[in-house]
């Protein structure tokens, strides 16, 4: 027996063979790599954007906060904070922020906005971007307002016009383009209007019940030692009821938010990559099947199984590398568009630079992914018997042990990737299960199609129909690969449409029906109630509900004071329960959005000394750690009121209605200082607008939310979000199309032979056209329908679990998706066979 070392073949020979073999297969190998190009491109673009975003957050952390430290509270911040900051030499600037109506006298327009009354000084870092550029000193010394740009556009107003906030009319000094730390999406929900803090009292808006947020921004002196904050200020602030953020914390919060965003988008890109990899798996499978004879010959000539496999492994890895590199380059150029795409979501301008890390990661992931998905076919090469060289029909009967191993490796890869992107083992698992589930459903659909077409094959039907149908199940068919790739892409885009409809429907349904309110007025003072009712009557708007609200804080829970509970690190009571300001109402009965779960509803307290039994939202059972009968004491603006848990309620929070965590019985809070909420219903937009104008004119402190505003806001936010998601879904759809083109071209040789044979046997052009049209129509049709069905299932589940509503999908849009995808499949399929139709059969075969 010869010495093994004598003929040890270097890697160089394998590379040489891989290169030689690839010269005649360039086109097909390019097809493999094209499948992964888009997925990698999307991945690199997103991760590169994420890296740039992190760099930006790191570099502009102070601008995100606008200061070194921010202290905030729902109640006025005590002087002890100012005194302490002052003693440390901090510069300070204060803010009061709240929701209020604004009124544009120019055209009598009104809208609920987010008013920020600020002092000169803020922001200490970064600046307001305004047009014209406003001088903050001038702005705070005059009676000026800086108004959100889109708000001005909405009301056709401009700098120089006036805007009324509360009792005061301000000059619009400039329109606000960008505010430090705020993204466009947050200003869509609550457009900001800045006014000088010193004029706050004159607006008359700081009344009982106004939901104020008080803030102190501080700037450290130049020689400030950060340790003073960590060791002295932070522990002291933690013991107060105030919340606070320093630059490091804000950086972390913002970083986490965008890590979630980019993580989610990277997973969408990853789906495109997996789709591409399925394309690779399908193409490599067919490609390597055709290599069986060559491998058998190589084995006859003395190559080992591993060497034979090595040649094609090098090809796959090489193509994976080239494909990933092209994808990475493409991604690097895509990323130029991303800052524009995400401009509304990010509170600063992201400067894009090449992230070499993202590129290296993308290439590595592309290589590993293409290798993993081709591995099963590659490993099978090892087992090809040399006997096949002399007996082509010879089949190895060994069981395919690799299937399980490769399947497990792919699962581990998908999970590891998701974990890497999400940094959360559980969410990564859910993603992996979701992906596997969707693939399994689509693969099941494909197998069912194959089974049913075979089982119920219309043997007596026309030749064309039989040929077209048979193409769905005969060897090397495209059914599985196309149903999975096109199906998943369609599912993604259809789910998006369905979810959008669900959200819009949900908002509409919440106020549909004649007796449901579609307008809420809040911050109403007790002495305004009668006049407001009168005004509503004038406008023929029914007062559907009028709810008194009393604010209070928790004083003690089961005999233990709030301070004690806060300090007790072993306590399970959630901090939000201890710190929040409770807005409580009282009535003698439940509304139709409430269901009693446990205990008894106390309608009224008859005598002043009687026990007070309150009703709690069921969520407080866990967060407050209370049971029926437990004692809870509230501090109602100075007076301590002792109560007992009388019942727990389940509340449907999604209705446009007032709901309360804590409900008191009648006979307790009637005399407490309170304000009111009024619910009414308008029938037309005009009625709503004129009523709101009158309300703002007469009662500037009252705020109004109407359904139109909510719908418009939801619509605006969704439009921005869905654009980004559609952009990402595009990668999946387009990858699906590339895989489709790839699969069809890979099988072209076989198909051409078959078509030529048919032509030789006398089939005419129209026969071939009809057969191919039918096959691709069925494939495109079934793939897109499967995708739409998956989207409908996902939509139904979303509707059931997340939105608590029923789904009413937009069928015309889904129909359009179906027609487009099917038409595209037929078109690509037919272009594939066009070469057969115009030429003599022998010429086609020779070429």
């Amino acid at each position: 027996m010869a010495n093994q070392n004598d003929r040890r073949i270097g890697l160089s020979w394998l590379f040489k063979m891989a290169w030689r073999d690839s010269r005649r297969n360039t086109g097909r190998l390019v097809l493999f790599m094209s499948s992964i190009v888009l997925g990698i491109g999307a991945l690199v673009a997103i991760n590169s954007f994420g890296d740039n975003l992190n760099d930006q957050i790191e570099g502009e952390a102070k601008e995100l906060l606008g200061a070194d430290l921010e202290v905030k509270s729902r109640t006025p911040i005590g002087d002890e904070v100012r005194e302490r900051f002052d003693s440390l030499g901090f510069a300070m600037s204060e803010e009061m922020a709240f929701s209020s109506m604004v009124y544009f006298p120019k055209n009598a327009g009104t809208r609920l906005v987010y008013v920020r009354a600020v002092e000169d000084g803020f922001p200490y870092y970064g600046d307001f971007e305004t047009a014209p550029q406003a001088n903050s000193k001038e702005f705070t010394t005059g009676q000026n307002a800086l108004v959100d740009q889109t708000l001005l556009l909405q009301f056709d107003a401009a700098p120089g016009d006036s805007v009324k906030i509360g009792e005061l009319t301000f000059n619009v000094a400039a329109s606000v383009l960008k505010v430090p730390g705020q993204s466009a999406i947050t200003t869509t929900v609550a457009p900001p209007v800045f006014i000088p803090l010193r004029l706050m009292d004159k607006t008359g808006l700081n009344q009982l019940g106004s939901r104020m947020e008080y803030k102190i921004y501080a700037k450290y002196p130049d020689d400030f030692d950060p340790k003073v904050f960590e060791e002295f200020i932070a522990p002291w602030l933690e013991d107060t009821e105030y919340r606070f953020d320093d630059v490091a914390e804000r950086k972390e919060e913002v970083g986490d938010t965008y890590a979630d965003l980019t993580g989610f988008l990277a997973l969408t890109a990853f789906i495109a990559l997996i789709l591409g990899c399925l394309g690779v798996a399908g193409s490599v499978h067919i490609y390597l099947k055709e290599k069986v004879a060559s491998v058998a010959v190589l084995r006859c000539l003395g190559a080992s199984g591993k060497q034979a496999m090595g040649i094609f492994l090098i090809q796959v890895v090489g193509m994976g590398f080239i494909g990933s590199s092209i994808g990475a380059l493409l991604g690097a150029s895509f990323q130029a568009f991303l800052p524009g795409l995400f401009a509304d979501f990010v509170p600063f301008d992201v400067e894009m630079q090449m992230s070499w890390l993202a590129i290296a990661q993308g290439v590595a992931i592309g290589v590993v992914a293409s290798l993993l998905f081709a591995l099963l076919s590659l490993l099978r090469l090892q087992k090809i018997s040399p006997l096949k060289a002399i007996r082509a029909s010879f089949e190895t009967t060994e069981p395919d042990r690799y299937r399980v191993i490769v399947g497990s490796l792919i699962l581990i890869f998908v999970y590891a990737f998701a974990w890497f992107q999400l940094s959360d083992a559980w969410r990564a698992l859910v993603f992996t299960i979701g992906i596997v589930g969707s693939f399994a459903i689509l693969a099941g659909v494909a197998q069912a199609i194959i089974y049913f077409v075979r089982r119920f094959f219309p043997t007596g039907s026309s030749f064309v129909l039989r040929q077209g149908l048979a193409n769905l199940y005969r060897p090397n068919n495209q059914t599985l690969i196309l149903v999975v790739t096109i199906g998943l892409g369609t599912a993604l885009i259809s789910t998006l449409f369905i979810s959008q409809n669900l959200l819009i429907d949900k908002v509409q349904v919440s106020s549909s029906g004649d007796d449901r309110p579609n307008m809420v007025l809040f911050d109403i003072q007790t002495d305004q109630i009668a006049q407001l009712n009168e005004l509503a009557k004038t406008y023929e708007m029914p007062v559907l509900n009028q709810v008194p609200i009393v604010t209070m804080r928790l004083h003690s829970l089961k005999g233990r004071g709030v301070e004690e509970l806060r300090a007790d690190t072993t306590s399970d009571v959630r901090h939000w329960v201890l710190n929040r300001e409770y807005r409580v109402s009282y009535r003698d009965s439940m509304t139709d959005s409430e269901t009693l779960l446990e205990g008894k509803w106390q309608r009224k307290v008859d005598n002043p000394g009687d026990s007070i039994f309150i009703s709690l939202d069921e969520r407080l059972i866990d967060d407050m750690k209370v049971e029926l009968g437990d004692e809870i004491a509230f501090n109602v603006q100075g007076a301590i009121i002792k109560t007992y848990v009388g019942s727990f309620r389940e509340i449907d929070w999604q209705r446009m209605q007032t709901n309360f965590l804590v409900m008191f019985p009648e006979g307790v809070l009637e005399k407490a200082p309170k304000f009111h909420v009024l619910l009414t219903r308008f029938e037309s937009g005009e009625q709503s607008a004129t009523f709101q104008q009158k309300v703002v004119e007469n009662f500037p402190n009252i705020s109004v939310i109407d359904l139109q505003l909510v719908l418009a806001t939801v619509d605006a936010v969704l439009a921005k979000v869905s654009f980004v998601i559609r952009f990402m879904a595009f990668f999946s759809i387009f990858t699906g199309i590339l895989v489709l083109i790839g699969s069809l071209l890979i099988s072209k040789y076989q198909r051409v032979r078959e078509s030529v044979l048919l032509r030789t046997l006398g089939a005419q052009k129209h026969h071939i056209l009809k057969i191919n049209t039918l096959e691709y129509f069925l494939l495109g049709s079934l793939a897109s329908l499967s995708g739409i069905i998956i989207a409908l299932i996902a939509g139904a589940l979303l509707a059931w679990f997340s939105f608590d509503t029923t789904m009413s999908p937009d069928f015309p849009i889904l129909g359009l998706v179906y027609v487009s995808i099917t038409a595209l499949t037929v078109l690509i399929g037919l272009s594939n066979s066009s070469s057969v139709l115009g030429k003599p059969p022998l010429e086609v075969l020779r070429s």
Partner: protein
Amino acid sequence: MSEEIILSVRELTKTYASGSRSLTVLNAVSFDVKKGSTCAVVGPSGSGKTTLLGLCAGLDKPSSGSVSLNGVVLDDLTEDEKAEVRNRHVGFIFQSFNLMPTLTALENIMIPMELRGNRDAKARALELLETVGLADRGKHYPAQLSGGEQQRISIARAFANKPSILFADEPTGNLDGETGAAIEDLIFELNRDAGTTLVLVTHDLELANKTDRVITMKNGKLHTDKATEAAI
């Protein structure tokens, strides 16, 4: 001629399982082939000729029995060890040529030598190309060659590693009479020059009779084993 045995086959049996049944395609076949001799295996379709060839060349595993090739017992060798034996000692000529379609004629001839780590592979391949009369076709791919030319390349490849034994499976089966005859002549000529042992499987009795000895297979068994007139 040396009396040394290059191929020794003992009680060779091959059985395939087919569901619950088993099918014996080769049944206790034994024979020896002397070094430098030529031998033809003939028989009707399904008689076990190709199975016998596959087992003799170590392309398949017997169900029982033993094969010894150039002094190496193949029975217990791993697949990779058998591949090494093939590379060192065996040359193949196939009915359907089995050239690698993606490699040029020259590269096809180079493969066995490259697998052996031979640094002069290209020079030797060029030499062989000339020997088979296709010196100007080295850069052509198999699809650009006629059947006869492809088989010439296949023959050149078979002789590339100067094998001790050459297995030919219906080498002229896919060729017309005239081209087939030329190929036969080429095989015998090269074989004679190189002193290689030739085992060929064929339906063609005329071709078989050009060898020293004809083994006839019938129903998986060795039916006859006779010296030919050529040998005499």
